[in-house]
Each structure stands twice: as structure tokens, then as C-alpha cells.
């Protein structure tokens, strides 16, 4: 599903260059649950941003579902982000002035999904994170755990092939964090590919595979759980 080869990312700032990624190479298969760990400044978030089409690499090759990112326009990237990817951020990034329903609807506003189907899709997504009773509540009135569940519902509403999560439990207490990770586990068991960036060992252990980053390089790539999957990504 994902194939990166010699990936590099260089940031230029006031004439000086910072090498955020250097020669990163790996593959991720459909249905895998992958954690990316590393100390601050190791390049894990940069890697996630490139993988999720939010940023372009400075060099190397990145193929997503056999499409070379270098051949895709910004418009193509936006469409793929909308149709095939879901995002969960550490800071939730919800619009506080909108209700749960309206926040979850956001990706659908930029999609070609007919309006008639929106209601059902939103309710299904919200129900899957257990917040059906708060559908019309403004998200500014929710707890941190609830906000992150809304963010997951928003990531799920378009039925994406892959979910990118950047420190999804970073702003949560341990109980809420565990609940969120259970949701990710469930989604992965249903066949959804998940790539998670974290600095917490506890959170990383939910994944079956752990990529460790250091100084912009892939330090290790180890399988931490044995899960047998079919072609469709579902567990056997």
C-alpha cells in the first residue's frame, strides 16, 4: 500500500538547511497497524506528514497505492487526502463553534458523496466512536477524550483506506488514551491500515509493527505482534 525509497526532507530556514529525513526506506502493507516512535526532532512527524500527503519530500520516491507522489498535482493530493485518508491530530483540531455532527460532516463537504447520504454516514461514524447521544452538542463543550473520539469519527466518515494519527493520546489522561487506542485497535481489526506517531511506549505497543526514527533516519523496523492477514487486510 505504501512504499518509500530513499526518502529525504530538507527544511530551509533563513538560509540554513535542516535535514529532517534522510534515506528512509520501507513498505507498509494494507491492513497493517504501524507505530512510528522516536525522540523529539527524530523526524517521525515529518515522515507522517509526507506519508499523509500534507507535505512533499525533498527527494526519494513515495508510492501510495502504486501512485508516485511526484507525479501527482496538489489537486490530486487534496482529492486522495479526502477520499482515501483519515487524520487524527494530538490537538484534535475540531471547530469549536460547530456541533459534533457538523465537525464530522466536514470531509464530506469536500467530497463528491451525494448530500442525501451525508446524514447516514455521519451518524454511523459518530455511533462507531460511541457518541451518538452528543450528536448535536458543540464540540467546545466536550471532554478531551470525547473530542478525540469526534476527531476519529471525522477521520472515519469518508471510509478511508488508511488513518494517520499524530500523537492521538498526547493530550489525554491515561484512561481516555486507552479508550482511544482500543478504538484504533478495533478499526485495525476491521481491516483499516493505521499509521500512528507516538513517543509513548504504551501507545506504540498497540501496533503490530514499530518503526523507530533517530536523527531523520529509520533506526529500526521490527514486528512486535504477529498478526496473520489476508489480501483484504483483515485478520485471519
Amino acid at each position, binding site marked *: 500500500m505504501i512504499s518509500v525509497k530513499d526518502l529525504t526532507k530538507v527544511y530551509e530556514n533563513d538560509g540554513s538547511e535542516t535535514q529532517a529525513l534522510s534515506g528512509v526506506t520501507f513498505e507498509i502493507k494494507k491492513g497493517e497497524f504501524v507505530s512510528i516512535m522516536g525522540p523529539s526532532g527524530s523526524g517521525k512527524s515529518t515522515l507522517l506528514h509526507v506519508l499523509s500527503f*500534507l*507535505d512533499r519530500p525533498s527527494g526519494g520516491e513515495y508510492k501510495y497505492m502504486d501512485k508516485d507522489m511526484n507525479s501527482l498535482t496538489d489537486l490530486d493530493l*487534496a*482529492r486522495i487526502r479526502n477520499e482515501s485518508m483519515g487524520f487524527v*491530530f494530538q490537538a484534535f483540531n475540531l471547530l469549536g*463553534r460547530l456541533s459534533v455532527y457538523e465537525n464530522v460532516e466536514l470531509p464530506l*463537504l*469536500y467530497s463528491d458523496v451525494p448530500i442525501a447520504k451525508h446524514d447516514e454516514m455521519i451518524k454511523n461514524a459518530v455511533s462507531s466512536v460511541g457518541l451518538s447521544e452528543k450528536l448535536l452538542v458543540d464540540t467546545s463543550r466536550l471532554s478531551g477524550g470525547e473530542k478525540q473520539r469526534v476527531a476519529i469519527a471525522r477521520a472515519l466518515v469518508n471510509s478511508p483506506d488508511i488513518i494517520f494519527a499524530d500523537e492521538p493520546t498526547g493530550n489525554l489522561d491515561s484512561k481516555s488514551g486507552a479508550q482511544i487506542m482500543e478504538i484504533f485497535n478495533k478499526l485495525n481489526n476491521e481491516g483499516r491500515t493505521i499509521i500512528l506517531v507516538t513517543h509513548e511506549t504504551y501507545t506504540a505497543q498497540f501496533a503490530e509493527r514499530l518503526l523507530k526514527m533517530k536523527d531523520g533516519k529509520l533506526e529500526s523496523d521490527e514486528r512486535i505482534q504477529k498478526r496473520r492477514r489476508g489480501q483484504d487486510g483483515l485478520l485471519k
Partner: protein
Amino acid sequence: MRFRDTVKTSYSSVRHGKLRSFLTVLGIVIGISSVIMLMSIGDSAQQYIIGQVKGIGSNLIFVIPGGSHGSKFSAPASAFGVIIKTLAQGDVNALEREPSIIDVVSQVNGQGRVVYQSNDTSISYTGATANYFAVRDVAMDKGYAFTPEDVASMNQVAVIGPTIAKTLFGDINPIGKSIRLDSASLRVVGVAEKKGIGPGGADQDNMIIIPISLAQKQILGINYFNWLTIKANDAYNMEFATSRVISVLRQTHRITNPDKDDFTVRSMEDELALLGSITGAMTAFLTAIAVISLIVGGIGVMNIMLVSVIERTREIGLRKSIGATNSDIMKQFLFESVMLTSIGGLIGVFIGVTFSFLISIVLNKFVSPDWVFSMPISAVVIAAAVSSLTGIVFGIYPAREAARKSPIEALRYE
């Protein structure tokens, strides 16, 4: 993003900060309501003036001594107080023989002090032939208008307007009372009906009309005229009648070169055009000021939209991360700006129409009952279009700034 969703998203942002939205569009509200009021009052004034002129009689031609050799609307020297003695009884006699003319009123004007018992005031008075009242359509509220016999006999009589009647007599009936105008003692024989403010802006009711013979011989000591009012024959068109007046006067004054004309002829149509151009220029000038206030309002909108773009940087990042394109973001912010200014425009139109209506009620009551409310549809259409256009012009830069943000930098924004 569908248009419906763009509208919904923009409306949600505008609705969220009601007070800020209101303050943002306040400049637009003031600008649009000013444009509407000025255009409405200007239009009402124009209609009022046309009505007044038509009331006086659109078939009137005026002759003033002294030539005006500039543009169509330049005034002769006599209009600025220079004494020119070229209009005489011979001119009147010749004009009265002209078939395209029905009547000629000879007039002299003077400034004097009018006194009744302990009340006195300075006033402009007119000495005129008795046909003045018929030709200028001045009807009597009380008493009668003086007659040709009064003029021939140099009787010491006067017709006064309701304003001067009020000033001198208060609630007393002035008919039969004696007033003093400079050296002449006059008996009030008539009080004219109220006419209100004239097309030139002067109070038509603050006047005294006396027989021309009395004014010329006893008060002013002159034998020429300051003014002729000529009533054209309706069977002829005004342009022809005016040209005939000019021909007759050139003959009596023995003028062959038109550049040497020592008189100025104006028809009511000319006066109408002049007044129309003055009110038009005033309306244009005031509208230009209102447009400047709209530009200031627009800059206010741009300023707030730029602040809004900065404040909502993370929102822009989020929207881009979930699939919004540059064009989607641009449309969202541009539509917000247009929505703000359009709402401001609608409020401005409402306030402008309401205030114009209230002002017309006040003017109708205190200036003239002939003043009517007028709201040109073009003013409303222009105001609505201008307010939306302001939103586009002043919203495009902030919207572009929003659209150009990179998703990752926007998401990282603190």
C-alpha cells in the same frame, strides 16, 4: 465544494461572531445608507424643483438686462447688482406685438425696509404690472391682487406674501392695514397663497409686490426695468418663442452682432436644466463622499478578514488536510467577505430608505407640502451591487492569503 456548502460554511462563521460581524460591516452600513439617503433626497429635490417650475409655468421666458456671453448658464452682470438700463417700455411694446407671445410682465426689484407699527424687517420687493399675478400663477388667500387701474393711477397698494404677513402682523388680518416701505406708505390689499420654497431655494412667500409705476417713480426714481417675464403662446413651441423674443429685442436695440447682445433671454426650460444640473452636481458630489466612506468601510472589512485568516490558520490547515483545495478555501473566505458586505448593504438600504422616508415627511411638513418621498430603484440596485462588489474587491486579498497557506504550516501554527 458545493455552492450550498460554501454558503453554509460562510454563514456559520459570520453567525458565530455576531458582534464582530456587525462592527466589521458598520462602515458599509453607513456608506450604503448615506448613498441611499443622498440619492433619494436628491431625486426628491429634483422632482420638487420640476414640480415648482411647472407650477410657475413652463411656458415662461425671462429677459434680464445685460448680455451673458459665456456658457449657456452664465449670468449677466445685472444678476450681480450692476445697474444696466437697457430694458425699456419700447421693448415691452414691441414684444406685445409678437404673435408667439401672449403677455409681458415688466418688473423692477428693490431692497427696502418694511414697517408696520413696531414691527419692521428688510425685504426684497418687486414692482410689477398687474398681469404679474396671472402670468406667475400667484393666487390670493385674502383680499385681491392690484389691478391695471392701480398701476395706471400709481395707487399706493401692496400684495404681500404669507411669510411677511406673519412677520409684520402675526395673527392680525393685514387687509386694509397700512405699512411703510422706504418712503412710500402702502395699503395692503391682498395676501398671496402660500407657495413654499422656490426652485432657487428662496422663500417665495417672503415678498411684497407693488405697482411698477409706484416702485419706479416714487421709491426707486428710475424709468427702466430689471426683469421681463414673458408668457409664450402655447400654439408655438418654446424654442421658437424664445428665438422670437431675441429677434425682437435685437431689433429694438439695433443689434446686428449677436455677440453684442445687451440682454439675456432664458426660458423656464433653461432654468429647469440649470437647476437640474446644479442638483445633479450636488447629488454626484455628495454621493462621491458616500462612496469614499464605502471604500473606508471596505478597507475595514479587509482588515478584519485578514485578522480572521490569521486567527483561523489552524482551521485552514485542518480543512486542507481533510481535502479542501486552494480554490475551496479561497471561495469560503471570499464568500464570507461578500456575505458580510451584502448583509451590511441590506441593513444600509433598510436604514437609508427608512431615514429618507422620515426626512421627506419632515420636509413635507416644514418646507413644502409639495415635497414627496422618492426612492429611485436604481439607487437600491446600485447600493446592493456596490456592497457585494466591495466584498469581492476587499475580500479577494485576504481570501488569497488564506488559500495560499501550506496545509502543514497552517496546522503547526500556534
